[in-house]
């Protein structure tokens, strides 16, 4: 197993390399230039050129990439072009906000989706199943920003129960305050996930219910509840591991749109801000970070899989 993990890590290196080249090229090909944030019309062209030089923007694209790569390899993520702060600091300070929000929404969606998925499988094709499925479709089709605004409109403005934006009230520093701010964005994110997860668990449960071991249990006179919770559940949870594994990059990468609507100061919002200002050291760092997490998430899912289900072997 150690060998397999090592091999996976080695495979990841060229992959990350390719991702970084593509991301860098895409940023550079997009129309726009970070210098736009600094130039005012009364600056003379010499001053603009000097500023461009001091930011390294006068170099050809491949040289800019090589310089960036050199820095990354020595662990230096550079400085933000816009705020002039170290990129690593900017990312690290965002992680708790994103992790908290995404963790809460994942937890919320699993708590609802697992029982709901299993019940709809058992009650396949009944009214209950249809209604649940109907909601699942709504959940998938409703645009997140719209649903978010709706929730803000109802819960913040009309009912005045919850804050409409941000992560904390200025001057307070309590967990409860942060949670209060997190309820709406977490709900929006969970609502979309629930639909997907529920459908996933439903079909997995249906497949399990047809298996021989379930039929045999019934033949021995086991109760439906006993079969479902003591035997089927364990097998159904296998795909859930994949879900969690694949959610890891989301967990740390944040949600671009939802974080923007709620002004939640996570990595998603940082991503949006830096893309609009062409702050490429920050964009590159976020891209790289998400890619590493995606690869790591996949690996962890595979490892857990083989731990939970010995029939599955990790093969490099």
């Amino acid at each position, binding site marked *: 197993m150690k060998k397999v993990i090592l091999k996976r890590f080695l495979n990841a290196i060229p992959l990350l390399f390719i991702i970084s080249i593509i991301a860098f090229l895409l940023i550079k090909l997009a129309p726009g230039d970070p210098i736009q944030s600094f130039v005012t*019309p009364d600056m003379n062209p010499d001053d603009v050129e000097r500023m461009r030089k001091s930011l390294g923007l006068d170099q050809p694209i491949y040289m800019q990439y090589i310089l960036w790569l050199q820095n990354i390899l020595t662990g230096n993520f550079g400085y933000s072009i816009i705020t002039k702060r170290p990129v690593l600091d900017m990312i690290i300070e965002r992680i708790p906000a994103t992790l908290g929000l995404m963790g809460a929404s994942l937890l919320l969606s699993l708590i609802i989706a697992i029982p709901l998925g299993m019940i709809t499988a058992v009650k396949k094709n009944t009214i209950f199943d249809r209604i649940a499925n109907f909601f699942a479709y709504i959940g998938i089709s409703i645009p997140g920003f719209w649903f978010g605004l709706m929730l803000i409109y109802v819960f913040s403005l009309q009912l005045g129960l919850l804050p409409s934006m941000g992560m904390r009230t200025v001057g307070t520093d309590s967990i409860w305050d942060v949670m209060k701010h997190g309820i709406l964005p977490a709900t929006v994110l969970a609502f979309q996930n629930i639909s997907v997860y529920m459908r996933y668990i439903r079909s997995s449960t249906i497949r399990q219910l047809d298996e021989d071991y379930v039929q045999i249990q019934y033949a021995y006179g086991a109760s439906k509840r006993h079969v479902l919770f003591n035997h089927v559940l364990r097998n159904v949870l296998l795909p859930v591991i994949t879900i969690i594994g694949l959610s890891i990059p989301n967990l740390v990468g944040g949600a671009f749109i939802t974080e923007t609507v709620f002004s939640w100061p996570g990595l998603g919002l940082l991503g949006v801000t830096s893309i609009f200002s062409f702050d490429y050291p920050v964009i590159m760092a976020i891209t790289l970070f998400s890619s590493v997490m995606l690869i790591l998430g996949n690996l962890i899912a595979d490892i857990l899989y083989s731990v939970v289900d010995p029939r599955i072997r990790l093969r490099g």
Partner: protein
Amino acid sequence: MTKDFLSDRLFSCENSGLGDFSALLGGNCKKMKKKLTGFTMLLLTLFLVLAACSNDKDTTDEGKNESAGQEKDGGTLTVAVSDNPQVMNPLYANDRITLTVQQALYAPLYFMEEGGEKNFILAESFEPSEDQKTWTLKLKENLKWHDGEPITADDLVYTFESILDENQNSSIRGSLIFNGEPLKVEKVDDLTVDLILPQVSAAFEGVLVDFFPIPKHVFENETDLMQSELNQNPIGSGPFKFKEYKSDEYIVLERFDEYFAGKPKLDQIVYRIVKDPNTANISLQNGEVNMRLVEPQDAQKLEGTGKLNLHTFPEGRLFYLAFNLESKAVQNKELRQAVAHAIDKEEMIQAAFVSDEFADPAASIFTPDTMYHTEDITTYNYNQDTAKKLLEEGGIEEGHTLKVIYANNNKIMESLALYTQQKLQEIGLKVDLTPMDPSAYGQKTLDMAATDYDISYGGYIMGSEPDVYKTLFQSDAAYNYGRYKNAEFDQLWEDAAVEVDKDAREALYKDIQETVAEDVPYLPLAYPQAILAVDKRFGGIDEAKPIPVTMVEDLSKIYEVE
């Protein structure tokens, strides 16, 4: 004074949302209906009913609650801004958000009032010598930085020298260079400096409006002022001092008790960074935010809540239509004049700005707050017959095609473009509309060799000093959106910059405005109003004086009502 010149960038922050919330419920739903099922519509109706019910209650409760209470000592004002500040150092501040925060954090030497009168803040006096080349700047006594150190002539000298230092890349360096020669600074005594100009400059007083001294004792040992970590914790001279900044969350400023012009009334100013304009409007209604610049489309609805006072004031911006004179299709002057006659500016304002309350028709390229702005120039009344006759005189054939481009994230530009299209078609021209990605649009309009479009739109805020405008109009200027090349016209700008006689200068700037009006490389469209929505629980806004870009001039005057 070229603060938020890149108007597309500004607009991209504020207009990129979904637009009006009610439009979302009403208008845009139609599009969505096809996608959504009946049940969602039911859900929607539920939301709507809920909304309608409680809305009624709100307006009747709050309607009586006019702001007529007693002035209170203390309190917190929360202002919504759309983005993070960039580098919190006056040497580098040039975006709207940083300038807004800076307005509370730093005090300028003086404000320039309408009519060119100086309202001295840090400065005690500012007088030129006989030959107009040496200006003596004297500070008031007993001024203090936020850390208690005195503000002296050393700080002034240090600030001027830092701006002029090429290695510091200050964004205002260009304004202290005159014909390639830098300004010289000499300390006279602890409170006085002499500023020596290499040549006479009529614009100099206007340039220093944007000058905010920085503390020498803080920055002395820093090699790179732009990259300096000290900018994370700025020490200023204004009515409020820095307390805390959390990126993408908020900036907290605290009252500076020793502010020389009197203790500010509020305890705290909080700038909350709210990215989504719809969310920001809701926060304004439920009191999480107390002050924000709003769009014309939202103004009426916000006023209807009864919780907010709207202050409208000239934004100091001009919306214009620019002809690309590199393109053959618009090189004919009669054609450009015909376009001017074909557009009914009053009607256009209704279309783009909701009501004539929120914009005035424009004739001059100078905004009304700019010195020497005049109305006494060639204007083009709305007349389709005159327009058609001009087209005939110019030899323009029926169906002559004009390519119009605009930024697709800017609602106002879009309305202007659609309106122009309709009106030009009515006089027999053909119009191709191309919405573009905002960055691509920005690049295209600044690409001086581009010939593949004829008309673009924009809006600039240039401030009170007319000399600054030349970066938009001289033949080889980087921002010559019209690609207007006219040697005589270039010379007028140069002459006006060094003319110290007020009447002669006025005449030169009148010539300049008339040249553009007559030759129409640009067609000025409208001077929009800025709309500042303020919670009724706060007063003193008029004393604080609403101004373009930074919302208000002097935050120390705002107070909370008991």
